[in-house]
């Protein structure tokens, strides 16, 4: 127990990230199921009240984006990246632990809002954030959202931002600076590359939302008018700041998944990644362009024809590097010896589904056509094809791929296939009809709709699909759980992968590599035209390897942050100060604690 609380081992932290994020995914999914149950019929299927419904979709979006998908990717960053680059750990192991604890506490803080009502003299289920995951001003002002709901949201996101930023710096340095000898940048495995790009997006995009949230906080707590027309402010500035972060954020969510399938496809088709350099550079281009498109979320705000044209144009450009990736993946499969493992199925599913989401994205990119689509279920369809059909399928692929490495135990392939097909059918049933309900006039974020709209049938299909996904997810959950009772018999390289993580035992020893390998090719474990596979590493380290002990301070420091947030929430300065004191003491003790790598 203590060893888990104080751990600074990237592998353990990776597992902590995984289980925590998976838990939040179930919570976010449960919220989605309630949303779907409510919408199964016109005029309210489940009798969920408008207020509760607004909390549900806000928390669903926020949870999925910040508490499920980002940290699920982070689970792989943590576990896999140091192994792939041949390192003993990340650059800053304690900072890494800190990121995890901050993430966990931030997530708990956000979700505590569901039950915190009584503390504010309100009912349970009444003070959770309820202004949507992008919290448009001026609905979020004290005047229109008087309760603590939006405070929970903005403080929670601030906390989570700290976790992401800390992890961002950590992984930038880890990937750039901790590579094994010979691991040149263009020999990095594609997953590591996409992670690096993602982290650059994190450290540049998160400061912007930090500022936006600070300004919002000043509006709400101190009576400024940053986003309030009454004092000359402009609610549109919020939208610019949010989407300047928000659009890079969606690539933060997809790039790691793209990296994962760029590992899975070569392994299971026994062919190197087609066009490796192009795939890498297209990732860079996507990230770069990703910074220039944010206003495509604001076509209906009246930006004027010139800005509309510019942002429509830049948005469409992103289809090119993305398409390049897709074609290279198909090129990888082409001519290979494809083994249809669950992992591969999910990877192929990713490609198939992401194309649909990407293409509906292009219909959004056309500003005038988006005027009929924005804020309807058509957008909801888009986001779920890219986020579920893309990111989640990609992450599932990664889980089936790396689970034996992470635990030494195989997931059942039989159940995996059930999981895959149920998920694929479920998601199409859930999200494809949303294209229709949207274009037929169903706005998003409505807890009820009129039977006369004629969209009831589509909503029924969506609901059935959502519950199919739910069942699929339960199958998967069961599959995960039962591996604990299965033998720990996974060999070092069960799938015949080419990258360094497969050179060591499953699960790897604490110190990872008995000796740090020297890398001479992009596919160190494979026989290629010019390179023989790497010689196996010795079974035992030639000299004892010193592994740093754990540390309490990352966790203790992390605890200061929610304390500060609680103080702010309750308008109690002493609590804020107490939290700040915890942070400061934590940082000092941390800085002066002996800690050897």
């Amino acid at each position, binding site marked *: 127990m203590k060893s888990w609380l104080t751990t600074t081992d990237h592998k353990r932290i990776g597992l902590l990230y995984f289980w925590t994020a998976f838990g939040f995914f179930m919570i976010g999914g449960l919220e989605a199921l309630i949303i779907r149950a409510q919408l199964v019929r016109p005029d309210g299927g489940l009798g969920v009240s408008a207020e509760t419904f607004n909390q549900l979709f806000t928390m669903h979006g926020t949870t999925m984006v910040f508490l499920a998908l980002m940290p699920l990717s982070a689970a792989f960053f943590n576990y896999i990246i140091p192994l792939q680059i041949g390192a003993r750990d990340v*650059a*800053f192991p304690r900072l890494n632990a800190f990121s995890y604890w901050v993430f966990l506490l931030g997530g708990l803080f956000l979700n505590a809002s569901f039950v915190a009502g009584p503390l504010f003299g309100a009912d349970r289920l009444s003070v959770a954030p309820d202004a949507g995951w992008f919290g448009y001003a001026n609905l979020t002002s004290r005047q229109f959202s008087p309760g603590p709901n939006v405070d929970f949201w903005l403080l929670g996101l601030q906390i989570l931002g700290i976790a992401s*930023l800390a992890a*961002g*710096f*950590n992984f*930038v*340095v880890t990937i*750039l*600076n*901790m*590579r094994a000898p010979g*691991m040149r940048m263009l020999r990095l495995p594609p997953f590591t590359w996409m992670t690096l790009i993602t982290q650059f997006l994190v*450290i*540049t*995009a*998160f*400061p*912007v939302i*930090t*500022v*936006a949230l*600070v*300004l919002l906080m*000043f509006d709400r707590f*101190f*009576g*400024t*008018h*940053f986003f309030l027309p009454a*004092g*000359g*402010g*402009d609610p549109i*500035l919020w939208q610019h*700041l949010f989407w*300047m972060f928000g659009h890079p954020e969606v690539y933060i969510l997809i790039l790691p998944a793209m990296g994962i399938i760029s590992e899975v496809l070569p392994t299971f088709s026994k062919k190197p990644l087609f066009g490796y350099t192009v795939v890498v550079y297209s990732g860079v281009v996507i990230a770069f362009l990703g910074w220039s498109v944010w206003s495509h979320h604001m076509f209906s705000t009246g930006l004027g024809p010139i800005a509309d044209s510019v942002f429509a144009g830049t948005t469409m450009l992103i289809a090119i590097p993305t398409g390049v990736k897709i074609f290279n993946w198909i090129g990888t499969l082409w001519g290979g010896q494809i083994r249809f493992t669950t992992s591969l199925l999910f990877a192929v599913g990713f490609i198939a589904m992401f194309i649909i989401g990407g293409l509906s994205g292009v219909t959004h990119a056309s500003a005038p056509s988006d005027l009929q689509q924005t804020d309807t279920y058509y957008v909801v369809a888009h986001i779920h094809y890219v986020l579920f059909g893309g990111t989640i399928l990609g992450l599932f692929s990664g889980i089936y791929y790396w689970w034996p490495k992470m635990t030494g135990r195989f997931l059942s392939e039989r159940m995996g296939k059930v999981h895959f097909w149920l998920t694929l059918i479920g998601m199409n049933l859930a999200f494809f009809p949303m294209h229709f309900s949207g274009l037929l006039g169903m706005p998003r974020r409505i807890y009820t709709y009129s039977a006369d709209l004629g969209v009831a049938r589509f909503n029924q299909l969506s609901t059935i699909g959502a519950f199919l996904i739910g069942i699929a997810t339960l199958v998967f959950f069961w599959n995960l759980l039962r591996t604990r009772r299965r033998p720990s018999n996974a060999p070092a390289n069960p799938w015949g992968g080419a990258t360094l993580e497969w050179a060591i035992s499953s699960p790897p020893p604490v110190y990872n590599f008995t000796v*740090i390998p020297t890398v001479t090719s992009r596919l160190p474990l494979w026989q290629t035209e010019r390179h023989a596979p790497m010689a196996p590493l010795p079974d035992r380290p030639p000299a004892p390897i010193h592994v740093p002990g754990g540390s309490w301070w990352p966790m203790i420091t992390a605890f200061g942050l929610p304390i500060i947030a609680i103080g702010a929430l309750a308008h109690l300065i002493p609590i804020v100060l107490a939290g700040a004191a915890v942070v400061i003491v934590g940082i*000092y003790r941390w800085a002066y604690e*002996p*800690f*050897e*790598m």
Partner: protein
Amino acid sequence: MTHGSTHATSMGVDNRKMAFWAFIGSECLLFGSLIATYLVYKGRSLVGPYPHEILNIPFTSFSTFDLLMSSLAMVLALAAVQRGDMKQGKLWLFVTALLGLIFLGGQFWEFSHFVHEGLGLTTNLFGSTFYVLTGTHGAHVTVGVIWLLTLWIQALRGKLGPQNALTVEITGLYWHFVDVVWIVIFTVVYLIQ
């Protein structure tokens, strides 16, 4: 404490230093967004006081000078620590922190003077954007001063030496960055009215 000592890094630079440059890059976007907010709302205050009525250029020029000198003191401190001249090192660390404190004192005086003149945080958009931008900068200076004083105390206790040159260098990076941010703020907020 660092990896540099145990195992050579891929880029030949210390992890902490690289992390710090990344952090400073990230800070560029933090201040960029704040400055953008300030500029977007320029001239949109509904009521006074307006910038030209209240900003005190001679006084702020002095503050700017003060910060520039603190940057000089900082490089001198680093050079001394690298040489192993801890006497000079202590001196310049202290001078840097002191100049930082003077800057903060100036900012405190400036803020209270403005409040006295009728410009509060919520008076108008100018007040809000001004205080949040310069206040965020001031918070950075505060952190820097605390950090410098910590190093100084370490030095007094004889626990800081050339082996910690890197720590001092990183402190310096932070400190200089806070200085260049002020260079921008001085121009954008004070001189271009």
